[in-house]
């Protein structure tokens, strides 16, 4: 056989290559494809026509990259500055054959093996964190895309509304249309495209990974500095002496300075201004209004609507009153007249500065999309002959799991259930199959000896240098 494969000296001189990608062993002249049109001879080098994605390790200086140029190959050819991702690896399905790429590369003096594949995830979805206090809808409300339910509103977090989208019940448990729309929605979100969603009984929101949310057509610029009570605690000393009362309007916890621990500490005189809602602890009020698009995530357009009454025995004419929202986006200044009625007035510069400081301390509002999925039995079978050992190896953190090179959080407990920030993955990392299910790159990295011990296909491992030689690669800097 070796006699058949060997190229003549004249062939070698002419840049002819022998493709060993498959048993046909095509002899390919420069500039031509092999019989399959998948591999080609590019300037005397065998390249794969679909690009594989290679991530520059973050600690490696970013290499200016022109596909096919020599500059990068020398850099990455050392084999320790790059990480082969599963993108473009293609997948075997069902995965009873070894994963397409099992790359052996030396790292930190340990001969490591990275099993690179694209997994088909029927059990997958995204958790979306939307940095806004604006009311998106009640918890458990249906979230729809194109009229189909693709998920629901889940437990709100500090300064953020949360959505849980996708999952097996929407992908395969409902109508065919529901499955397809869910798959499209997940695919778009995971590939960092913008998606418009409507919440039943709530808002229409446009979300995109690592971009500001757009709620009912309005772009959310800032994430609140804290809840109303926290804002009081943070800024009380700066208000001291400039105001007689501050009400930080917040749908969750509205803060009232003079009653709050922060005000008491400054020996502030009670103002006699009572806000609506349910008192939690001193100076902290729940449910001051209905949730909505107005001040601090409430439905309020006029902050005075929050005031239940002004106690004439405690309040005094000339009392200076600041209303501000948790983002500093809304603010108003009032002084009480002789009849103890609040009258709008020009906000003093010192107070204006505190409002601006609240805004300054807000972080930019973002949408964060975490892809969450379980690596099922057949995917694991592509990695090792004894799938449960891979699960155990991952659980004991001996095996590192990445998706498109981005580190994944592996849930404790059974199975390999992972979460990864799609913003850290390379562009166009996700695909789909019509099952419907998402296709995502996934890599398992572990020392070679451990890989062999858990029943891995170590004999199928190829060196990173060989991948670089035979595959057309796309290089991206690590995010």
């Amino acid at each position, binding site marked *: 056989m070796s006699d058949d494969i060997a190229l003549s000296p004249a062939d070698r001189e002419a840049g002819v290559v022998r493709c060993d990608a*498959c048993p046909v062993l095509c002899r390919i002249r420069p500039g*031509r494809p*092999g019989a399959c049109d998948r591999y080609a001879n590019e300037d005397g080098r065998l390249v794969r026509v679909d690009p594989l994605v290679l991530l520059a390790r973050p600690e490696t200086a970013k290499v200016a990259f022109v596909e096919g140029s020599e500059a990068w190959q020398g850099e990455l050819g050392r084999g320790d500055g790059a990480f082969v991702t599963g993108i473009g690896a293609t997948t075997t399905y069902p995965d009873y*054959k070894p994963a397409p790429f099992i790359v052996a590369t030396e790292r930190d003096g340990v001969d490591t093996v990275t099993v690179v594949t694209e997994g088909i995830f029927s059990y997958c979805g995204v958790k979306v964190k939307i940095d806004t206090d604006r009311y998106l809808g009640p918890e458990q409300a249906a979230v729809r895309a194109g009229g189909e339910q693709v998920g629901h509103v889940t437990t709100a977090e500090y300064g953020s509304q949360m959505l849980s989208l996708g999952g097996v019940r929407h992908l395969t448990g409902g109508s065919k249309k529901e499955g397809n729309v869910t798959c499209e929605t997940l695919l778009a979100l995971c590939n960092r495209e913008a998606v418009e969603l409507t919440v039943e009984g709530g808002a229409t929101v446009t979300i995109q990974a690592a971009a500001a949310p757009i709620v009912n057509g309005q772009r959310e610029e800032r994430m609140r500095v804290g809840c109303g009570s926290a804002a009081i605690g943070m800024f009380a000393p700066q208000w001291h002496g400039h105001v007689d009362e501050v009400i930080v309007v917040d749908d969750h916890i509205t803060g009232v300075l003079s009653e709050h621990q922060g005000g008491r500490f400054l020996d502030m005189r009670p103002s006699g201004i009572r806000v609506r809602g349910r008192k939690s602890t001193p100076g902290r009020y729940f449910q001051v209004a209905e949730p909505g698009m107005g001040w601090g995530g409430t439905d309020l357009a006029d902050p005075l609507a929050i005031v239940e009454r002004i106690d004439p025995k405690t309040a005094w004419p000339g009392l200076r009153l600041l209303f501000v929202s948790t983002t500093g986006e809304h603010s108003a200044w009032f002084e009480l007249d002789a009849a103890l009625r609040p009258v709008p007035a020009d906000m003093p510069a010192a107070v204006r500065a505190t409002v601006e400081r609240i805004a300054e301390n807000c972080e930019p509002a973002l949408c964060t999309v975490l892809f969450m999925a379980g690596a099922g039995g057949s995917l694991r079978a592509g990695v090792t002959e004894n799938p449960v050992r891979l699960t155990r190896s991952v659980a004991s953190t001996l095996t590192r799991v990445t998706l498109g090179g981005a580190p994944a959080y592996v849930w404790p407990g059974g199975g390999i259930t992972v979460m990864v920030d799609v913003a850290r993955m390379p562009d166009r990392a996700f695909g789909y199959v*019509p099952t419907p299910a998402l296709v995502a790159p996934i890599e398992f990295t572990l020392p070679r000896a451990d890989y062999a011990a858990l029943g891995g296909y170590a004999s199928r491992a190829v060196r990173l240098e060989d991948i670089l030689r035979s595959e057309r690669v796309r290089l991206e800097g690590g995010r």
Partner: protein
Amino acid sequence: MNGPRAALLPGGRLHLQHGPIDLVIGARGPASEVEAAYAQATARFETVLGALVEELPLLRQPLGTTRPLPRGTVARRMVEAVWPHRAVFITPMAAVAGAVADEILAALVRGRTLAKGYVNNGGDIALHLAAGEHFRAGIVPDESVPVPAGFATIDAASPVRGIATSGWRGRSLSRGIADSATVLAANAAMADAAATMVANAVDADHPAVQRLPARDVRDDSDLGDIPVTVAVGSLPPEAIARALGAGAGEARRLRAAGLIEGAALSLAGVWRLEGGDASLLREAG
């Protein structure tokens, strides 16, 4: 070296790929039957390319007076299909795509209850049709205009179970100038071999037709120094008619010999049909 790969495509189709072989497979029937059929086809596919490569030197030999006796079942299908054409230069490779399609189709349907099944190997299609079913195939003569210009509808009652298309733009080299020569036959291997013959026959000597020795066009071609078509410029109507006439004549000869059921030829937007049953092939309009 990469092994055979399997993937599901949109529409529940199965994609099997190994080296130069790309199969798109469809089956209709109860879900459990389709799943079992796909598993059978995938299992059979494992060794197809390896077995072919082992016998490649034999399969690239032009046929002579002695019938070759390869070991592999796909190789035997190839020899079976090209043997009737041995009077002209032909190698068993002329039927390789169709033979692979037939072999995988046989594995797909074995013991299964399917209404319909097909294995499409780059345009060479093997069919399974239960009684009452029919299959509709679009013909795309020019890959740069990926819209079917003609259609073939195969009814279960007809003896056709193979469709193959050859043309000078396709992956296989052609000595003729047909944009497409689509042949319907009893199986895909027979259709494949016959399509090569018919496409070669669609020919006219005209300065607008450029040819090169096959070995200069594709490395490892089994056609060696035989000139193959590499460009077809603008042809006068009489040259088009003459070329299509020659192709239709060859198709008629093959049909009379019982090797094919029908053929549809296209050149420069002109179509010529050859087939007893006009319902088999229709022009798109």
